[in-house]
């Protein structure tokens, strides 16, 4: 038995006010996330400017192909997510469920590739503080790069894990018929969060993987 569209919560006057509040609330949350990641972007900018050669050498240790594949995967998951929202808006239950499931799948693929990348870093002794074996004049500054690499991709992956869990919950609720064209706020705001994770990665790709790929 499917459940009806959720009632309007008591503090709101009508469904439109509730929807507007949910949307504004999520956008504001995303602004806080921009600042959260932003602290690391600031540190990266400073050191990238201070140590261009070391950062270039360090960046070459990363696998640009895997980075590119992961970018395609994540952008693909954004497509499936926006299609899921489209399904919710127009009452296309199958589209909603299939696209949420694909989003889950693609998000997991991203994490899988990330795991492969990280274990490769471990094998090559490129994990600061735990197993870092680079030597040479600029080893320290490369260690700085890798610290930021793990910090930024790690925090990003954590957000992705949370996103996958949330999408999973949304999927379960959608399966039980909680959403309709009149009420599907959770799907909309989950979509916003998911796309934000995509945007962060859009910047991480060139910053981390593509520094000075030309040249030896």
């Amino acid at each position, binding site marked *: 038995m499917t459940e009806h569209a959720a009632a309007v919560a008591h503090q709101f006057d009508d469904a439109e006010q509730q929807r507007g509040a949910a*949307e*504004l609330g999520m*956008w*504001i949350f*995303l*602004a*806080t996330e*921009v*600042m959260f990641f*932003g*602290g690391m*972007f*600031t540190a990266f*900018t*400073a050191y990238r*400017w*201070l140590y261009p050669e070391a950062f270039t050498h360090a960046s070459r240790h990363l696998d*640009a192909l895997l980075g*590119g594949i992961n*970018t*395609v995967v994540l*952008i*693909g998951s*954004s*497509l499936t*997510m*926006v*299609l899921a929202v*489209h399904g919710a808006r127009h009452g296309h239950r199958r589209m909603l469920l299939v696209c949420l499931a694909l989003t889950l799948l693609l998000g997991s693929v991203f994490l899988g590739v990330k795991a492969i990348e990280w274990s490769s870093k471990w094998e090559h002794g490129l994990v600061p503080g735990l197993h870092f074996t680079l030597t040479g004049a600029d080893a320290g500054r490369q260690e700085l790069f890798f610290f930021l690499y793990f910090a930024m991709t790690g925090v990003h992956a954590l957000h992705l894990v949370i996103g996958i869990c949330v999408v999973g919950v949304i999927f379960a609720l959608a399966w039980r018929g909680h959403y309709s064209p009149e009420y599907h706020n959770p799907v909309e705001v989950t*979509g*916003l969060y998911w*796309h*934000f994770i*995509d*945007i962060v990665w*859009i*910047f991480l*790709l*060139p*910053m981390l993987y*593509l*520094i*000075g*790929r*030309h*040249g030896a």
Partner: protein
Amino acid sequence: MARSAVPLYVAVFVALIVLTGVTVAVSYVDLGPASVVVALAIACVKAVLVLLFFMHLRESPGLTWVVALGGFFWLGILIALTMSDVLTRGWLPVGGP
């Protein structure tokens, strides 16, 4: 009945993939200091596409635009003023590294 937005989403997706390919390819070309600018510019275009079309910013009220742009602008303040220190530390030959 409004036209379906699905073709638009797919078109944006294709554009994003193409731009991803471009940014990877361009990184193998020696553009000197312009490399950073080009890479950032492409990333910004991709982000704007996601914001406008996937996040429906195009159809959102003005307040949403303020929030979206405000976040990035504020990050700009953090980076710019921090870099004002980092960039100018070496200018005065008095003490320091």
